[in-house]
């Protein structure tokens, strides 16, 4: 049930990106809600909840973006894992909004770079016919970070509500029978 709900969240994030946010680009850049959801899931210490979101969100973006299959899935998985590693192993203090904003900014830059070099490598190997233009990525980077930071707050609270709901379901299931 938990995994299903997290997959549904990733699916909804993709639909909102394609159906709403893609109509309102900021300096050509569109916020990647799938990545934001993955990062927010990965921000919880010791949690693996980011994996279903990264897998489904990445696969949906892969097929709709025209990039080589696996680009976004690979980028989301690696970015989510690195955010999770940083939160679990490096960050000693409590997670603050400043840390979260830093994590999101780094995640946007990292995932963009991973998508670009993944496609570049496959193009150089002759596997892919699409050579991405790095200038598009560079020109989108700052606006995408800005819109992602604006959307971080609503996404974080939506994910919190979902996690609380999942936790309440779990409590109900494990409650002793009277």
């Amino acid at each position, binding site marked *: 049930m938990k995994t299903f709900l997290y997959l549904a969240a990733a699916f909804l994030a*993709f639909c909102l990106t394609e159906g*709403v946010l893609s109509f309102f680009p900021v300096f050509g850049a569109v916020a990647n809600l799938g990545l934001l959801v993955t990062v927010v899931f990965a921000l919880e210490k010791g949690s693996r909840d980011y994996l279903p979101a990264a897998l489904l969100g990445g696969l949906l973006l892969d097929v709709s973006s025209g990039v080589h299959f696996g680009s976004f899935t690979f980028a989301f998985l690696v970015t989510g894992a690195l955010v999770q590693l940083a939160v679990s192993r490096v960050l000693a203090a409590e997670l603050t909004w400043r840390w979260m904003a830093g994590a999101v900014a780094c995640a946007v830059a990292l995932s963009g770079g991973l998508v670009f070099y993944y496609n570049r490598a496959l193009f150089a190997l002759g596997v892919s016919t699409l050579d991405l233009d790095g200038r598009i990525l560079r020109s989108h980077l700052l606006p995408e970070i800005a819109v992602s930071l604006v959307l971080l707050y609503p996404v974080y609270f939506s994910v919190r509500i979902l996690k609380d709901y999942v936790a309440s379901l779990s409590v109900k299931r494990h409650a002793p029978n009277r």
Partner: protein
Amino acid sequence: MRFIYTKGFLIFVSCLAALSLLVIFEAKGWVGPLKLALLKAPQPVVSVFSSVARPVKGFFSTAYRLQRLVSENARLEQKAGELSRQLVLLEQYRIENEALKRELGFAKSSGLSLAPCRTLGRNPLRLSDTVTVSCGTEQGVAEGHALISQGYLIGKVIYAGKDTSTVLLVTSSRFSTDAKLSKSGAPGIAGGSFGTGLVFDRLSQNEPVEKGMLVVTAGLSEKVPKSILIGEVGDTISGPNDLFKKTVLVSPVDFSNLDFLFAVKVP
């Protein structure tokens, strides 16, 4: 415990391994049904969201362009009158041409062989200037085939799967095709340019070019037939000392909002 011995790391590596398998299967063309399912599954929800977002965007963009629309309307009205006069003339030429063809025994031209396609993936993040369309090798579409919308060239197929294809748009800096000026037949190269959109390049400096001249495909490539409209000549962006003349090309197609397209099949 070290990170690499944790269960989380094991699951992460398993996900990467599964992804690697999918990538290999994709290279072999075995994930076509999965891709089609992933493309079609969000469509109902996306269309509901789009039906709300599109009018909102339309309202704000219209309000923003209102001033320009008034002057554009006046200019277009003037142009429509001029084109109506030209249409009458062309109709006379057509009748005359038909009669001459009959006289000379020419076969009636067959026109283009088109396959209708629908945009499935709108490339929401706009990273690659590509769109995914709903026609593939099953519909006779192959890599290199041209796609048109409203009679204008919009791109070429760079990957043709069984039921879906990826199209590189003409606005991409990676796109180029042989082209010519419709009026004089002067050859050049049309393609995308980062920051400019569409450009017509490699045109001889001696060639007179005016704004509004039509640029069409030259037909040198076997997979793109000649005389497909690419756009109208806009501002000249090269200097008099440059080796070649380079102009902006203006296409009326809204490349960020493509819906129905036609693939031009070449046997």
